């Protein structure tokens, strides 16, 4: 089995103003593109509601191309986590002061791991809708994990 891939993120804005012959442009571009030539990738998807869907980060229930179940030995083996939901949902780790991301309208949220001294210490991710802030009670979600 071999894994090759990339994760790219680009934030690009042009802020312009004009005033009697003067034009001003402030450009903001923040970008990263990271290539990976080894490791493991996992994708999980489903429907969640206000009751949390729990994902075991050590054994997330995904099969690799060689037919073997993908597992992670340590929480620190997980390097990047991406999350997308439609119409909106939240994903958090169950441990102390861990990861917490939200997504709406299929936007992709992404974090590097581990988070300092809090490397997904609870061993699980939970995905659920808040049922507040106008959120629908149910949502479709996708969680993608890259690790070693």
């Amino acid at each position: 089995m071999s894994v090759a891939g990339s994760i790219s993120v680009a934030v690009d804005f042009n802020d312009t103003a004009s005033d009697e012959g003067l034009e001003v442009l402030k450009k903001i571009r923040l970008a990263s593109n990271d290539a990976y030539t080894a490791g493991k990738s996992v994708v999980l998807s489903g429907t969640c509601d206000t009751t949390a869907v729990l994902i075991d980060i050590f054994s997330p229930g995904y099969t690799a191309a060689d037919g073997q179940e993908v597992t992670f030995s340590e929480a620190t083996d997980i390097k990047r986590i991406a999350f997308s939901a439609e119409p909106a949902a939240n994903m958090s780790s169950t441990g102390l002061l861990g990861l917490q991301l939200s997504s709406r309208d299929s936007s992709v949220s992404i974090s590097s791991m581990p988070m300092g001294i809090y490397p997904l210490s609870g061993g699980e991710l939970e995905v659920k809708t808040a049922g507040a802030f106008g959120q629908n009670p149910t949502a479709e979600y996708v969680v993608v994990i890259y690790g070693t």
Partner: protein
Amino acid sequence: MALSGHIGVTFDFNDTASSPGLETIKKVRLAKDSAFTAGQVAVLSGTADNSQLNIDLQDLTYRNAAGDLVSFSTVYRIAFQCDPGATLRFTGNSERLNSNNNNIALTCCIPGDDQLKISTTAGTSSYILAVYGE
């Protein structure tokens, strides 16, 4: 003043395996590109350490192209880039994300929380924060 821009994320992996006479590929691709034609954007950068660095999104020193101070009542997206690594969170703990080795971390935001904290576990880290909202 006018603002236009986009935020794009692509997570793309090919997982391949082969055995005599058989090749298997599993492709994982999660991608989204969102375009924006209105709103406000601000960029902040600096150095953080393990004491909590507080950022009030209604009291920034960043000025837009028109020269006016930018203040957010609602934040829609936050991008966060650090080296070697730091954690960003809203004080209400609605969002908590991390950037290591200049990888960009990105999230959309729950309305109503406009106070951010940046901290490292130990040592110092440079950070860049890009905020999009109204």
